[in-house]
């Protein structure tokens, strides 16, 4: 898709600004403030039913609606892309209910709502990153009872998580967890970074932007203030390693980005492209050319102009 930036749309009548009623916003705002004061701790909140199903980002949408102001510029990404269903529908939802300006350019956005990626471009102090979270509890698949996981967090009892990572090593020879890779926040709370690829984990540490996490179905909000220490769990003899790729992006030639594998025919053909569409477009506009860019349709290859 070609980059787009609107300078404010006209909100549909009949909605309160950003859809939620004011009492709901206050309740969510109070949860956000406590989440910021206790980094990595999951604050319960009275999640509302939204006009989209659970699993479509209702937690992130509620957090965004609670912090959004008329002068904000919103970017929404789904697995790094601005043009996939979830991103497009959430962006349109806020255009319709709030009339705020939207953008696909990472650098222009003041609020970025994301499903499972952190943009490649470094975030700034003027930005807020809002994550859509399906399962906020990192211990949930190890201990199904909420009463127990609450106590485990209270006692800082995270031995079970290390056993899980150790079992990865015993079975596979290495830590096989590649997404939703658990992190420890400020040496206290173990936190689920949402199903972002572990490639993105290092970007959470000492990030200049405020990071907010919303889980709608599970009714939890948590946060990482800027410049917070976020460490991926590992062992001395099996240190954490971000995912590395053997390929370069077929469109922009990048070798430092997170790549998606795209099947191109039914004869085993495939290509690897940047998952962050805005970053890839920007690189092509700067003249970077990947191996397959010459064969790409004009709509994509033309972006380099």
């Amino acid at each position, binding site marked *: 898709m070609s980059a787009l930036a609107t300078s404010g749309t006209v909100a549909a009548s009949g909605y309160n600004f950003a859809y939620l009623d004011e009492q709901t916003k206050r309740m969510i705002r109070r949860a956000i403030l406590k989440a910021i004061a206790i980094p990595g701790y999951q*604050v319960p909140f009275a999640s509302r039913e939204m006009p989209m199903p659970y699993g479509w980002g209702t937690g992130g949408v509620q957090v965004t609606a609670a912090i959004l102001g008329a002068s904000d510029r919103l970017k929404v990404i789904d697995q790094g892309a601005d043009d996939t269903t979830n991103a497009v529908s959430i962006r349109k939802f806020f255009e319709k209910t709030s009339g705020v300006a939207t953008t696909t350019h990472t650098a222009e956005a003041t609020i970025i709502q994301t499903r499972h990626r952190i943009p490649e471009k470094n975030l700034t102090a003027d930005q807020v990153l809002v994550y859509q979270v399906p399962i906020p509890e990192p211990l949930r698949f190890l201990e199904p009872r909420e009463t127990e996981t609450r106590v485990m967090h209270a006692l800082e009892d995270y031995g079970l998580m290390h056993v899980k990572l150790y079992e990865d090593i015993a079975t596979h020879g290495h830590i096989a967890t590649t997404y939703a890779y658990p992190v420890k926040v400020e040496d206290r709370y173990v936190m689920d970074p949402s199903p972002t690829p572990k490639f993105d984990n290092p970007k959470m540490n000492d990030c200049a932007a405020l990071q907010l996490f919303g889980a709608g179905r599970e009714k939890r909000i948590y946060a990482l203030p*800027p410049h917070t220490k976020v460490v991926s769990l590992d062992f001395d003899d099996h240190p954490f390693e971000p995912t590395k790729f053997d390929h370069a992006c077929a469109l922009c030639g990048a070798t430092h980005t997170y790549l998606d594998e795209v099947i191109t025919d039914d004869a085993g053909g495939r290509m690897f492209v940047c998952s962050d569409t805005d970053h890839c477009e920007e690189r092509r506009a700067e003249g970077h050319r990947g191996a397959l860019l010459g064969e790409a349709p004009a709509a994509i290859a033309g972006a380099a102009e």
Partner: protein
Amino acid sequence: MALARAFTDPVHGAQQTFRAVMNALARPGTLQPVDGLAEAPAPLSPVAGAIAVALADYETPLWLDAPLAAAPNVAAWLAFHTGARIITAPPQAAFALVADPAALPDLAGFALGSDIYPDRSTTLILQVADFAANTATSRLRLTGPGIKGHATLAVAGLPADIAERLAANQALFPRGVDLILAGPSAVAALPRTTRVTLVET
């Protein structure tokens, strides 16, 4: 008794005030500008009044310190604009409004949350005189989440032993109270994670 107004534009006024408080808590030591509510009844300050109206409602019991509790207009204005119950027992307070922070009560007397639910703690809103360096009575050096390296905050109006009190509060982590400092035109915050030391002058 005629009641004064609150936000002219309740939706965006509350959002802008909240966002300033959010940024202040996310970046301890920074000053975030807030348009106060000029009509807040004295001794409630315009900025503290704006924060209370932006964040409090029927779910959040409010505690008032002695000067605020002594002014019936304050309780009536807050009750009308927020719907919050005004309570007298500090451990039940979601928010505590303090007009005279020099006489700040013991922080441990407020709700500190539990180890399992540390979020169930009081947020204190302290009306401070000023953040100007030349009139400051406390110069604080801050480290912790939200701060790159360290930050400094000059405040007029806090008790002399504020650093010891905040250290005791910080030692309770993850339990503890969070402080929002409401100045004449801006807000700063000291969440429970912030480590505070007094800078000798």
